[in-house]
């Protein structure tokens, strides 16, 4: 198919190939040429063979064809006349050597301008050395506005060295005791919950069988203020994992289940997964038969789990401030004069476990929040501090290696990196759901574009968990932002199994999150989720794009070498 003048300009230095049969004497224009974007496909299928003496599009435009030639014929000097010579790189180089005038000492001479309208004359010394001007230039005051703090969040971490089951729930001297009858009581949270059990898995005894991991939840609670500001207490060294089956023994998240031995099924140390030294508090919930694949079943399991965690939170609230081992202070800033950017996190919104609780009352909790499916999956803005304070409780989509669990949002590497970066102004984190049906996807994507426009941002990073039909929204979200002139970078797992099914011209700066050597969703929890190294690549990519530096086109197929090469820029 022929190309437009605009496309020809974009591919000025790419080989010129005829798109159709052309007769001798044709004066070559863009409409006679094939689109270089499809050359790799044509070469792969054997339809096209490019030779070394092929002329470029820039060279052949306006030249004359000397003989009849078929479609898919690369144009060479033998076939056309009056083509332009290839410009050598030297001719375009900008020299930085001193000018002859400067070298010959003309700095002290004077250039004199006569002005008709004004009386008198102005003398400006050549070379513009201010020290020889007949007057002094007042130095302009440096205007570097200070970053303004909007809100402050203090997170105090408390070490947990042992977890026991006992008569009362308490947290003292780094020992967490959980009340024995708490699980039975948690059934009150939802009538669909038929059973709940709890056991403790120390770091050295992880080779135990587990039903599917529905979520990894940090234990954190507010002691002062609301989510995103004030003070939060967090347990370090202990984390809750929620597992679930229905009464028939079918795994909740059957499609995305990762039942098996815990030491084999978890990539420890990822932002979302338990750390290598964490004690795991496993809460196993059984829901009513055949509700594991409905929206109400998984949510009931999360509610029961939250009921148990709430009693632990009440004990954690009482921990004395001086007993904390680490105190982190996070600010939400208003940074005047720095480029405004936004982080867009696409979350699942197709229903059942493809859902998230937004802004619960307690950090990473369930109660008090609203689910994105109920909100129609429209974009919702959270401040960076609200995200870091557990503003998202994930009901956790399927695909163990690529799903983002609650702990992932609590420790989201891009939020931290972008919020603390001194060169940009992260104005907010937008959470947008991914609905099932395509026209709903278009509806929410369009709202995202309008929101980005209203926020007046210059740059955006769009991420998505999982893969599948949510890649359709992913592409559309990027397009809606990009078409408004905002520079945008995308980050997702794609690799071999999750290759993108749609694309557009704004998807030219993409970050691959895959960590599996064969490019598969390898069923190891959190393995191919967004890690600090991916976050650094994404931010550098965004800064590069915003600075106007061209991004090299991606390879046709997923290649780890590209990721490794890019990784070197951030080390």
């Amino acid at each position: 198919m022929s190309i437009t003048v605009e496309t020809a300009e974009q591919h000025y230095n790419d080989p010129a190939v005829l798109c159709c049969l052309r007769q001798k004497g044709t004066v070559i224009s863009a409409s006679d040429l094939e689109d270089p974007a499809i050359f790799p496909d044509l070469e792969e299928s054997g339809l096209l063979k490019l030779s070394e003496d092929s002329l470029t599009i820039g060279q052949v435009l306006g030249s004359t064809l000397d003989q009849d030639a078929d479609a898919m014929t690369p144009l060479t000097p033998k076939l056309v006349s009056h083509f332009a010579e290839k410009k050598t790189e030297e001719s375009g180089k900008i020299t930085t050597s001193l000018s002859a005038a400067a070298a010959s000492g003309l700095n002290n001479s004077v250039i004199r301008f006569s002005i008709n309208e004004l009386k008198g004359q102005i003398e400006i010394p050549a070379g513009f050395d201010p020290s020889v001007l007949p007057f002094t230039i007042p130095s302009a005051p440096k205007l570097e506005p200070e970053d303004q703090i909007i809100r402050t969040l203090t997170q105090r971490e408390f070490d947990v060295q042992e977890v026991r089951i006992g008569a009362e729930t308490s947290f003292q001297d780094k020992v967490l005791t959980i009340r024995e009858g708490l699980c039975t009581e948690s059934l009150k949270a939802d009538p669909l919950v038929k059973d709940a059990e709890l056991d403790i898995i120390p770091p050295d005894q992880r080779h135990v069988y587990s039903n599917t991991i529905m979520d990894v939840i940090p234990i954190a609670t507010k002691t002062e203020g609301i989510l995103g500001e004030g003070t939060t207490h967090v347990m370090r060294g202990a984390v809750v994992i929620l597992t679930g089956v229905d009464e028939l023994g079918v795994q909740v998240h059957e499609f995305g289940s990762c039942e098996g031995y815990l030491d084999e099924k978890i990539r420890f140390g990822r932002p979302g997964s338990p750390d290598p030294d964490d004690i795991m508090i496993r809460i196993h919930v059984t829901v009513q038969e055949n509700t594991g694949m409905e929206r109400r079943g998984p949510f009931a399991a999360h509610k029961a789990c939250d009921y148990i965690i709430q009693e632990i939170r009440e004990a954690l609230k009482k921990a004395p401030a001086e007993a904390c081992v680490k105190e982190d202070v996070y600010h939400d800033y208003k940074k005047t004069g720095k480029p405004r950017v936004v982080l867009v996190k696409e979350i699942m919104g197709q229903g059942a476990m493809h859902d998230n609780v937004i802004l619960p009352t307690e950090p990473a909790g369930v109660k008090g929040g609203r689910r994105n499916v109920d909100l129609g999956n429209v974009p919702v803005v959270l401040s960076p501090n609200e995200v870091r304070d557990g503003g998202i409780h994930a009901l956790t989509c399927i695909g163990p290696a690529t799903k983002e669990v609650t702990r992932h949002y609590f420790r989201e590497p891009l939020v931290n990196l972008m919020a603390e970066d001194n060169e940009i102004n992260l104005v907010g984190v937008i959470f947008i759901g991914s609905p099932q049906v395509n026209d709903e996807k278009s509806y929410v994507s369009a709202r995202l574009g309008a929101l980005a426009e209203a926020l007046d941002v210059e740059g955006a990073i769009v991420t998505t968990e999982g893969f599948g039909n949510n890649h359709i929204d992913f592409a559309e979200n990027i397009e809606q932002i990009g078409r408004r002139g905002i520079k945008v970078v995308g980050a997702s797992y794609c690799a071999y199994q999750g290759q993108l099914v749609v694309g557009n011209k704004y998807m030219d700066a993409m970050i691959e999150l895959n960590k599996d050597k064969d490019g598969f969703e390898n069923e190891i929890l959190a393995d191919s989720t967004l890690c600090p190294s991916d976050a650094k690549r994404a931010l550098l990519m965004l800064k590069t794009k915003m600075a106007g530096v061209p991004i090299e086109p991606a390879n046709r197929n997923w290649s780890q070498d590209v990721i490794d090469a890019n990784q070197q820029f951030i080390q």
Partner: protein
Amino acid sequence: MDCELTPKLLPGKILEVTDLGVKVTLKGRMGIIQVPLRSVITDKSLQVGQEIRVYLSYIQVV
């Protein structure tokens, strides 16, 4: 919507064998497929746990 659906060679495992057909689970937890025996090509007798490979893409509703 104009999607480019390219089949990928996906590995999987046999979950259930009956006189009628087999039920397989796909790697990456992309789903469970049940097909009649005549849709399965094999040199071995079918058993639960055997590894399979199938070319698959997404389902597009038309």
